């Protein structure tokens, strides 16, 4: 009888041969020594395989090394992120200790005041143009890039396993040593109150319908509520998102607010930053530093020690004292009114549509210059500054693109390619554009997430900026279709693409739509590539 093939013998050894065929093979084995030897060898081989596999690799010996909580975006990554924050905070402290002269303070991107100032005055600078804008813009972008660079390289190091456990532990220690001792007191109820005889030693986080502080909060008060009333003392900052924020007590830090109305009857040692529908600084109210606001209407009856910078949509009334400059943009309905009791220690600058929008009473005192500019709508194309501005913008985007390509070539090229997935990137980008702010707010509410949400915000802004770089590069490459794919081609494509996007951007209505589409597309590609980069490498078949 003819011998069986090795495959049939292997099937038999695996117990996978049909019953009658297995029986025939068994009969054959009784007479054929060669096949018997083969089956024995195959059986032994199976044994070797099972034995070798079942002797688990060493790394399986530490099942306690991971827990049920281990996720792909797990603790390791959180630790890395926290370490980046820690590093950031170390650098920021170092920056702060450099004692930068006040005149150069804008250059310090790590000063919290400067940063908030930048964020809240962003639109103002954009409208205003000029070199100041570029300098601030460069500082902000530099800050983002530094953080991204730090975060990116640490994440990469961690992912590639070069940052082993001891490294991570060291980072944790660094983190513990460097982060300020944030102690938190969280309260959540309909009515959160700090009684007059009560002292909260930590930062108080309150989410409620009404938050009332009659006592003392030694840290910051972070409140999300319908009404926030401060009658006592807050030693740190007051951060509110509320329908109504009223301060009749004392705030020794800054006020950051997003409210419908903000009424200040009490004492504020530092500045107010925020966006409100209605701002009222009562004649008993005192602001130790600046007011930087976007408001529907503003009524300043009290004292502001330093400057007031406001963008107002309806009216601004000043009857109190302002230590330095008063700058106002807008006020197209009620205009800017300075009453007899108003006193401005510095210059008065107003940017209005019509002269009649500014009313300055005879008794009002303005120590410096009066600079009232009319925002006459003339074609922007007739001004040389416009072209200089565009050229600078283009050069900036080219520089960012080139640097990005130099530092993260794989990431930039992959993101550029992802723009090509069209509707998918567009849809994802739109979802990120709309969803990310919600995610940031939700993350910020869970206090541990506050720094994370700040990082998310920065990545978000960077993504919006980089969107046109990727879309531009993709567009340019599609048009030029370079035979090779060198870095030079990429940069040339970027230049052509950006030029096209810039020109299209000037077309009324369509330009805005295209710009929106570009942001969505680029943001989508950025998000998709970030997701991809965070996943471990694929295995190929």
């Amino acid at each position, binding site marked *: 009888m003819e011998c069986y*093939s*090795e*495959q049939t013998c*292997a*099937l038999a050894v*695996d*117990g*996978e041969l049909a019953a009658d065929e297995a029986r025939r093979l068994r009969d054959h084995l009784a007479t054929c020594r060669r096949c018997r030897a*083969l089956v024995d*060898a*195959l059986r*032994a*081989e*199976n*044994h*070797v*395989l*099972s*034995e*070798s*596999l*079942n*002797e*688990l*690799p060493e*790394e*399986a*010996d530490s*099942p306690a090394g*991971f*827990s*049920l*909580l*281990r*996720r*792909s975006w*797990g603790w390791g990554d959180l630790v890395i992120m926290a370490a980046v924050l820690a590093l950031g905070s170390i650098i920021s402290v170092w920056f702060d200790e450099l004692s930068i002269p006040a005149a150069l303070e804008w250059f310090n991107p790590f000063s919290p005041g400067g940063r908030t100032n930048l964020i809240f005055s962003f639109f103002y600078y954009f409208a205003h143009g000029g070199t100041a804008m570029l300098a601030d813009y460069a500082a902000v972008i530099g800050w983002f890039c530094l953080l991204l660079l730090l975060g990116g390289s640490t994440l990469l190091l961690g992912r590639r396993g070069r940052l082993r456990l001891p490294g991570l532990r060291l980072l944790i220690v660094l983190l513990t040593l460097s982060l300020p001792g944030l102690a938190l007191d969280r309260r959540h109820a309909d009515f959160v109150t700090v009684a007059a005889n009560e002292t909260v030693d930590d930062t108080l986080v309150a989410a409620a319908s009404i938050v009332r502080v009659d006592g003392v909060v030694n840290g910051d008060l972070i409140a999300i509520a319908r009404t926030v009333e401060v009658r006592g003392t807050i030693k740190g900052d007051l951060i509110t998102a509320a329908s109504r924020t009223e301060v009749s007590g004392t705030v020794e830090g800054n006020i950051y607010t997003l409210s419908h109305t903000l009424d200040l009857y009490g004492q504020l040692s530092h500045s107010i930053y925020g966006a409100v529908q209605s701002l009222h600084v009562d004649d008993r109210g005192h602001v130790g530093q600046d007011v930087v606001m976007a408001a529907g209407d503003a009524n300043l009856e009290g004292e502001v020690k330093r400057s007031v910078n406001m963008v107002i949509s309806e009216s601004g009334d000043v009857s109190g004292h302002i230590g330095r400059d008063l700058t106002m943009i807008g006020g197209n309905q009620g205009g800017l009114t300075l009453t007899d009791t108003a006193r401005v220690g510095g210059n008065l600058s107003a940017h209005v549509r019509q002269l009649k929008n500014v009313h300055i009473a005879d008794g009002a005192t303005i120590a410096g210059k009066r600079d009232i500019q009319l925002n006459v709508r003339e074609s922007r194309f007739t001004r040389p500054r416009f072209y200089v501005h565009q050229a600078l913008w283009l050069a900036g985007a080219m520089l960012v693109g080139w640097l990005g390509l130099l530092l993260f070539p794989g990431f930039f090229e992959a993101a550029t390619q992802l723009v090509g997935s069209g509707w998918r990137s567009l849809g994802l980008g739109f979802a990120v554009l709309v969803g990310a702010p919600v995610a940031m707010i939700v993350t910020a509410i869970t206090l541990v997430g506050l720094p994370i949400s700040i990082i998310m915000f920065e990545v978000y802004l960077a993504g919006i900026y980089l969107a046109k770089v990727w879309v531009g590069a993709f567009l340019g490459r599609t048009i030029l279709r370079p035979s090779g794919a060198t870095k030079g081609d990429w940069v040339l494509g970027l230049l052509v693409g950006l030029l096209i996007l810039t020109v299209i951007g000037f077309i009324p209505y369509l330009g805005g739509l295209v710009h929106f589409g570009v942001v969505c597309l680029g943001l989508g590609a950025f998000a998709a590539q970030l997701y991809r980069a965070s996943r*471990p*490498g*694929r*295995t*190929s*078949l």
Partner: protein
Amino acid sequence: MDAKRNMAKEPQPREGGTGQMEGLDFEGVIERARGHDVEALAEIYRRFVRRVFGLCRYMLDSRESAEDATSDVFLKLQRSIESYDGSIPFPRWLLRVAGNQCIDVLRRRQRGRKVIVEIEDGTAVIEATSSEPSPLRAVISMEERVQVRDTIARLPENYRVPLVLRYYSELSYDEIAQQLDLERNYVAALIFRAKQELRRRLPHRSK
């Protein structure tokens, strides 16, 4: 096999350990786990985590992915254990679940496509390329076993996955075919080729 006996079948010695559940027989542990008893689930985790992790580590390319998959298996176990009917031994059932989890991971990476794609004549039974088969030697040292394991880990996915499912999870060809959505004959061919490839890469370990 009797369902009760299967359920009560103790896991292999390497999973054994001590704990609050020590007094309880394994059947009792599974019964309690079905009722979402946290301690019982923790006991199952403690006994089987190494074995499940081992499978995931062989099937997936990185320790991190294997850890994720292992976590997922035990997280989902809280619900999936209700579907365990005792018709097969629990360790084998659990490894089947874990195998499915790994295949899902691999499939997601392939963007939903099959993990192993059949080639055109894939169902044809192939014959040995050499007339003189030389299976791996029966008795090998510990270092050699490590080498065999490492070589298996470096095999291409379409060889490694069926081989591991067969000789680690001890699944039948039919079960592997079902998990991988392939023809049974093709699974047989892949396992056969995988062994040949292994012999080729470990020539001095063959006789």
